[in-house]
């Protein structure tokens, strides 16, 4: 993992997907590991089914502002494919790594038949065109299989860590889960996290490549 400082990570999705939770978990784990962390969020009215973004600034040296300048993202973690595209267009650059969930959350305009949602293939083509490396994770499928569709976001955290895109090892993130959760919730979240790790590792093995 290249030691870029600050490391700029954007977590994006749709209100209600647990975007904020993801950024907090990662943020706290990073603080525990001694990093200076800043997280900027879009809040409020965006919660009602609107686009949500968290900007994470990760540094050993200094604390950075809550907004990543245009074109300066290093990693984009997408909980929703079209949101990943949106963020990539504004904050991406030729060196960016993108890792996204494959399952769409249809905007209201598509649900009511007023607009068309692109296919996942179309989305992946553009993601690959606009990044150095693009990962597609079927996080919702995995979460549904586990009986907990709401945990797709945690699966994505696992994939992010498994792909080596954060300066954090799995144990450090698991420690954070243990500090924040307990009982059945802890068990389920850990399970989802580990499944995410496995998804990323499987892909690494298949392609024989290393991320970044």
């Amino acid at each position, binding site marked *: 993992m290249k030691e870029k400082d600050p490391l700029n990570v954007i977590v994006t999705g749709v209100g209600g997907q647990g975007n904020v939770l993801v950024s*907090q978990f990662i943020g*706290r784990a990073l603080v525990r590991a001694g990093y200076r962390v800043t997280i900027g*969020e879009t809040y409020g009215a*965006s919660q009602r089914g609107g686009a949500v973004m968290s900007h994470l600034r990760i540094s050993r040296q200094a604390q950075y502002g*809550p907004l990543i*300048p245009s074109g300066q993202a290093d990693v984009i973690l997408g909980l929703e494919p079209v949101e990943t595209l949106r963020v990539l267009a504004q904050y991406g650059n030729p060196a960016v790594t993108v890792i996204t969930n494959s399952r769409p959350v249809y905007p209201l305009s598509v*649900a009511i038949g007023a607009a068309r949602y692109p296919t996942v293939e179309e989305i992946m083509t553009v993601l690959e065109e606009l990044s150095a490396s693009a990962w597609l994770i079927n996080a919702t499928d995995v979460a549904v299989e586990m009986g907990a569709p709401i945990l797709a976001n945690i699966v994505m955290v696992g994939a992010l860590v498994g792909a080596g895109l954060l300066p954090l090892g799995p144990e450090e993130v698991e420690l954070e889960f243990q500090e924040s959760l307990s009982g059945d919730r802890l068990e389920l979240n850990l399970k989802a996290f580990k499944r995410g790790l496995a998804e990323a590792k499987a892909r690494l093995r298949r392609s024989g490549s290393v991320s970044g």
Partner: protein
Amino acid sequence: MSITAYEPGASQLLMGNEAIARGALEAGLGFASAYPGNPSSEIIGSLAEVAREMDIYVEWSVNEKVALEAAAAASFAGVRAIVAMKQNGLNVASDFLMNLNLTGTNAGLVLVICDDPAGLSSTNEQDSRPVAKWAELPLLEPATFQEAKDMTKWAFELSEKIKNVCLIRSVTRVSHARGDVRLAELTPPGRSARFAPTMLGQFTPLLVTLKHNMLHQKVKQTKEAFETSEFNWYTGPEKPELLIVTCGSGWYYSLEAVRTLALEESVGILKLGTTWPLPEKLVLEHLARTDKVLVVEEVDPFLEGNLKELVGDAFSSLGPLTFYGKRSGHLPTIGELDPDRVMSAISTVLGRERTDIDAEYAKKGQDLTQSMVQNRMVGFCAGCPHRATFWSIKNALKLDGRGGFVAGDIGCYTMALGPSGFFQIKTVQSMGSGAGLACGFGNLGRLGFGQPVLAVCGDSTFFHAAIPALINGVYNQANFTLLILDNSATAMTGFQPHAGTGASALGEPAPNVDIEGLCRSLGIRVEVTDPFDLQDTTEKLLDLMQRDGGVRVLISRRKCALVRAKTEKAAYKVRVDSEKCRGEACGCARLCTRVFQCPGLVWDSEHQKAKIDEVICSGCGVCADICPASAIIREA
């Protein structure tokens, strides 16, 4: 993770608002009050979470005026108190504030105002900082999360030193962003609250001119303290080509802009944490370094104006100075700041090009994604009672045929301005103003007005501000119908409890003020309806509208969908019989998906039929009543 979960000395990832709350606890806070308002709500929210543990008093007040009054009482009685509000809340509290500043305080009283640049969750865009100049109170603007905590702690000391309110102004990007903060020791509050005036008029603004003079002395005191404040600093070369003077969120943006443009050798940054009154000596010292000054701040050129005022007085002792910023057009006068805007301003002022932009990638990104990425419409959740209420309102107004309309108010239901509420709301201003406007519209009869007037407000808004307007309507015999949308929640801001939900800020049982009883006590016609019964609600509303004369109230009562999801099972299992579904054909033209637009109803363009999204559908069953083919089936 609560704000008391970690030990002093540890680093905790805290939201700006949480850092402010933590700072207050470290200062020995005893009393906290607020009305929810984005981006301020978490300050009192996080204090409420630890209130029992810290044995302090925390309340959600009915509105910001009462919140400030209650906190002032605590201060008078020797208890350190904090009040938090968004910019609009300041407006509501301002009458009391403009008396409190002259009155003075006893124990430290800190008023935190969280502005919402670009009005991302507000009906207006407002820079609240001029209130400091207007009320002549010290103003602090935290630029970092550490500062948010440390400044709040220090604000209590300053407040007690000058015996007056200390203002802290934050913005969304500080309040809602998170960063690691080093914690210090918590301080329990004193436990000897007592109100004991020793002088005539001590806790009043009287005699006004005397107290005003005293206020001016306090301002002088504050200026002195600000000259040596740890919250003001300079970074950069001795003689920079350009001096950036910034405050609040502008600090990080400016720092990052200078670094990205690699201009550390030629650009210096004066970061001010104490922005009114300005520490004049300090500021003039730094202004003397250069002849070009760029002022970076959110929202209005407040700091810029005050600097120019200062320079105007000290003109003869400075060299030529050119100011850049909002007034020169280098930074926008509307909306939020961000690092890109600051970078563009710097490079324009210095005549340098920006080297950080990959124009080719940016264009490619635009071209490739344009057709695939659209704005996500915001709207009512699946199962929201507001959608059902506004459907009935729409139908009733159309059937009535006299050009009736709705004066709106603030809450989730404000979205009825748009397609989610069938464009029914026609006016929106501040809390309670729907009923206020209705009082005006409802007394234009003799001037030719003949349209039925409806006003809407939520249950929390009702308690906050609509009651005086309702009473005015009764007393002045205005002709309108007020719909109170009672969903048992202050939903838009995060489901804080209020006077009608039966729970306190600490989650304990609290008296439940009966809206219906209160309205009936005014001697007017009050009806209650279940918005999910579309026909009944439409009929009741039509009937009320046609009874011209005097105020009528219709309470549309049904719990918020998100509250129901937590506490109840879905009422129905809903599905579409695709055989019966008429889809786009004459006889339907996709009424449910195209017009009703509940996110739980999806248009399956492959099969040209409507279908239920089982993940999103809340099971309220209302859509079954609007389908003309009875193709939507609900089963209990």
